[in-house]
């Protein structure tokens, strides 16, 4: 009996999908994939930017105390108070300055600033991509 009805249903015309539908689907999937990537990137860079700002405060405080402890500030202030002496013994002065420099603290602070700036740069780029796409959809 099933064969009978399958034969019967075989009489019904099957519609052909509109031309270009397959390409439209693939395009939509690619758009969706891009949107998903952008969403992920916005989340990632957002978290990075916030983390960098949050970590900057203790890192800066740490750098300040390191500078005070190592005598770097005192050496540095000689440039303004005893310029003549600094110029005479500039090699020794630079060496002392480098030795007393809190390298780790400065690296951390600069690293955090760089992470923050890079995150903001990528966030702006991703947001503008989302914004221009939504504008494009609106105008279409």
């Amino acid at each position, binding site marked *: *009996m*099933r064969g*009978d*009805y*399958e*034969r*019967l*249903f075989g*009489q*019904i*015309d*099957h*519609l*052909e*999908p*509109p031309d270009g*539908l*397959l390409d*439209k*689907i*693939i395009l*939509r*999937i690619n758009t*969706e994939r891009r949107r998903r990537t952008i969403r992920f990137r916005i989340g990632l860079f957002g978290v990075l930017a916030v983390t960098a700002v949050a970590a900057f405060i203790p890192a800066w405080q740490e750098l300040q105390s390191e500078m005070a402890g190592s005598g770097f500030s005192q050496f540095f202030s000689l440039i303004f108070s005893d310029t003549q002496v600094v110029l005479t013994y500039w090699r020794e002065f630079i060496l002392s300055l480098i030795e007393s420099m809190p390298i780790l603290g400065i690296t951390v602070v600069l690293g955090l600033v760089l992470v923050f700036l890079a995150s903001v740069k990528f966030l702006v780029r991703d947001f503008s991509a989302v914004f221009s796409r939504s504008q494009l959809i609106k105008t279409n």
Partner: protein
Amino acid sequence: MTQTTDEELIKKYLSGDEPAFRELTERYLKPIYNFVYRYTKSGDSAEDITQDVFVNVWKSIKKFDQDKKFKTWIFTIAKNTSLNWVKKKKPLLFSELSGSDKKNEKESYSFEDSLRDPAPLPDEVFANADLKNKLELAMSSLDNNYRAVLFLHYNDHFTFQEISEMLGKSINTIKSQHRRGIVLLKKVLTV
């Protein structure tokens, strides 16, 4: 040369072979478009919904249980997407389409349904020159539930078990709707 199975294509796609998904889409484009069209009766809407179906498939393909049949899964997505569309468009019709079968499930499987399948179609039916139009008319006069079951069984070649999984109804309800649909269809065709 044997055709790559759906499951093989999915595995290929999941392991990074992008064109495998295109091939899968190409394979199901026509059946899904026709399936969706049966719900919407509009080419434009069918096109939009078909796009949504494949985007939804792409979104959830990682969650697809590869022990199950892909065909049943994609048609289930198509059914749900179509019903969502119908629900947004015509809330009243949705209730007809989704069927309040839970309530009537027990009573719908009556004694009549336990009888053997209806007799084959008489030859005169096939001899009718206007069979195609008559069939389309007959199908459109059927209740949505019966029509869906008949189409899925005879047109899309799903088993009752698969249709029951797809529509979320018991197999007895599906068999019952199939039987009633066949009886009504035969009645209309042999008039």
